């Protein structure tokens, strides 16, 4: 659509700008403030330069948390994206099945995140939880509060449970927007089911999948509440992802300087990954 040039449009944007800036600018400046200074008492600051940044970037604790974070995000993306697409492909296209699927599948998305954590805690506990009990019954030595591997398994499973539906919904909407003529043409051309997916469905879903991957990347990278309630980051630091580690540092140990520096690095990583990914997807777009 050809847009008209109109500088007055800024008036329309001002409320949004003010509301977001109100929340973004002052707190962000606070973080920046802390990141470059040391504070002992109220409003007494000394300039520290990039000391906290260097400290964080060199700290093994940060490296470990960052590593866990990337591993976690990688694992859940590797599971949720293909799984979400697969479920969307098999969902009914018309009839009563559509609203039923949509309503039931959206349920996990609307549960407060700490309830999700609590629910999975109850669900997975070896003594009282269905999952834990069943796994032990069939011979697995499963206890997510004690064994790091089990904790990981449970956290990943919980995230799959919680968020795969978002990928399903997006993929489903993308699939539905494909004109029937494409399927008909493919049928006439004698394309196999795989070819239909590869050459029609996947290319047409590209935009929604970009959105899905971005959203899932952002949210899983920022995950805090659910694993905090489920495992508290434990056992040990096994499931202490970036946010959990950050809050521990900031509130638990009150190391405000390093925590603030870490916050900025953290934010920067999210931005960078999103930006790179988005541009990669869009560059392909303009080429085609």
């Amino acid at each position, binding site marked *: 659509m050809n847009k008209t040039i109109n500088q007055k449009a800024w008036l329309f*944007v001002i*409320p949004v700008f003010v509301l977001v800036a109100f*929340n973004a600018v002052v707190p962000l400046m606070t973080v920046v403030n802390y990141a470059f200074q040391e504070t002992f008492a109220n409003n007494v600051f000394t300039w520290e330069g990039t000391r906290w940044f260097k400290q964080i970037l060199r700290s093994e604790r940060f490296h470990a948390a960052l590593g866990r974070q990337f591993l976690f995000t990688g694992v859940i993306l590797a599971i949720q994206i293909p799984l979400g697409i697969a479920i969307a492909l098999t969902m009914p296209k018309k009839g009563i099945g559509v609203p039923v699927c*949509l309503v*039931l599948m959206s349920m996990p998305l609307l549960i407060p995140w700490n*309830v999700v954590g*609590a629910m999975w805690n109850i669900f997975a506990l070896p003594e009282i939880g269905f999952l834990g009990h069943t796994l032990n019954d069939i011979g697995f030595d499963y206890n997510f509060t004690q064994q790091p591997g089990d904790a990981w398994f449970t956290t990943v499973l919980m995230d799959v449970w919680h968020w795969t539906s978002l990928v399903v919904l997006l993929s489903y*909407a993308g699939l539905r927007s494909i004109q029937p003529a494409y399927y008909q043409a493919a049928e006439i051309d004698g394309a196999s089911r795989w070819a239909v997916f590869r050459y029609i469905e996947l290319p047409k879903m590209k935009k929604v999948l970009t959105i899905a991957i971005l959203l899932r990347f*952002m949210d899983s990278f920022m995950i805090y509440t659910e694993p905090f309630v489920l495992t508290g980051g434990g056992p040990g630091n096994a499931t202490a992802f970036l946010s959990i580690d950050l809050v521990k540092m900031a509130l638990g140990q009150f190391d405000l300087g390093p925590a603030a520096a870490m916050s900025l690095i953290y934010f920067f990583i999210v931005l960078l990954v999103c930006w790179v990914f988005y541009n990669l997807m869009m560059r392909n777009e303009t080429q085609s």
Partner: protein
Amino acid sequence: MKKFKWLVPTIYILFLMLPIYWLLNMSFKTTTEIINTYSLWPQKFTFENYITIFTDSTWYTGYLNSIYYVVMNTVLSVAAALPAAYAFSRYKFLGDKHLFFWLLTNRMAPPAVFALPFFQFYSSINLFDTHVAVALSHCLFNIPLAVWILEGFISAVPKELDETAYVDGYSFWRFFIKIFIPTIVAGIGVTMFFCFMFSWVELLLAKTLTAVAAKPIAATMTRTASTSGYELGLLAAAGSLTIIPGAIVIYFVRNYIAKGFALGRV
């Protein structure tokens, strides 16, 4: 193969329902039963947990608080985002692309990063422990989202509709309210759904910014559960109740969800 296609979504839905069922199952048991006997359904069916919640004001005000700030945030986000999304969709103006990107970056900011500064900031402007504080803070991620979704819906409406209205003599605002908003009502529905959802499920900021007066239900729940030595039955009942508003909202907007994505940014 086509014959068994329905199996995939069915199994997936079963998987989704299991933990929810378990939570419900627990909510109808007493804490003693939960700890002592493992059973797939309540042996001694009880409403005791629910009764506790509905008779104790610290419990049910939690619900009211949550609903209060969620609705406030949803209305605020959509109201502010509408004209902005219109501007992004229809006009070119200085810095439009940068502004749009900057808005989206706020969706990328980890709440954990902002928790402490938010606490200090809202305390300093005397809004700590108010519904307004939570509603405002949730604008950080909901407004970018709302602008993003609405912009897609608005771009799907031909600009000739706007022009026709001006030609007919409508002033901008009259057109916007009487014609444009009803035209994109489905998009507004979808946007409200998402704003509601993200505000309802968020806890980190909501908990940080409240103490007593505006404390959300989800926070009430964790607190009680941890201090009184894991009253599991009560916890399960409270958790079950937090699912209800979401379920109601989904039921009402079920037809818009898929349509919304299809019409919107896709």
